[in-house]
């Protein structure tokens, strides 16, 4: 592949990727709808707000917490995972269950991917709870 076709491919992918991240204005904030998914195929949305000229704040609006709870994960387990996820992804250490990332404006896109991945890190708890419950049922049946 020569340099020209490489640039052409890059341009095509850039356009396609751009269309995968629609931005809407809803509920007093801008929401970026990412192509990244929760386990049930629902798209992950990230709220974005300018803090000042140089920094933006990205938030999941507590949706990862809500997703895990709704799917049967108990609150202490979610709290523990949220703390771990915050440490792992270097997110803001705040009260409550929101996942928040504060980044320089020139790192907003990278931050968006990072936060959406952090959302999945919490939401994937649902697989663990399904397996652990099934295993308990199996143990009771066998015993």
């Amino acid at each position: 592949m020569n340099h020209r076709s490489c640039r052409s491919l890059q341009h095509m992918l850039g356009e396609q990727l751009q269309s995968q991240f629609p931005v809407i204005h809803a509920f007093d904030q801008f929401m970026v709808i990412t192509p990244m998914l929760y386990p049930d195929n629902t798209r992950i949305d990230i709220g974005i707000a300018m803090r000042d000229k140089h920094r933006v704040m990205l938030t999941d609006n507590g949706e990862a917490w809500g997703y895990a709870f709704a799917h049967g994960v108990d609150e202490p387990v979610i709290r523990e995972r949220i703390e771990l996820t915050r440490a792992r992804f270097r997110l803001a250490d705040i009260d409550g269950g929101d996942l928040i990332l504060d980044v320089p404006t020139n790192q907003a896109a990278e931050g968006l991917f990072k936060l959406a991945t952090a959302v999945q890190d919490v939401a994937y708890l649902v697989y663990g709870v399904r397996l652990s419950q099934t295993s308990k049922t199996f143990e009771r049946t066998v015993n």
Partner: protein
Amino acid sequence: MAYHLTRQEADRLIRLPKRIDEPIRWTSMPGGTDRDTLSARVVCRDIDEPMDLRGVVGRTNWSFLLLTHARIPIRKLTVHGPGHRNPDGTDAGTHHKHIWDEVHEDQETYYPVDIDFSDVNVALIGFLAECNIIPEQPPERLIVRRRLR
């Protein structure tokens, strides 16, 4: 897969008469986050293990789920702004109901015509009725001060 449950079995569990013997109460999440949750044990004479009703009303999105004892969401009513894409690529929109099947798990959805989405409290009662759950007392009414979808 360890938690194998077929669509047929999930639908059978939905059809079985069930009840909730405890008050269905909303709890606000501490920490200043606009989020209310509910959790209630669902019992059924025909099965040994209890099921679980869960609900979350977030800042803008909300959902109600009926989970089996193994935490499998056999029915889920949800309103989620970013929308949903079904496994076959069709767009399910923001308001939809998830079903469970053994291939796509809870990824398949449809638009329910039997649910009033204009009021989250009415929607909960509709969800309970569809899941054949009779609560001992009417669910506590959630007062939502924010605007929901």
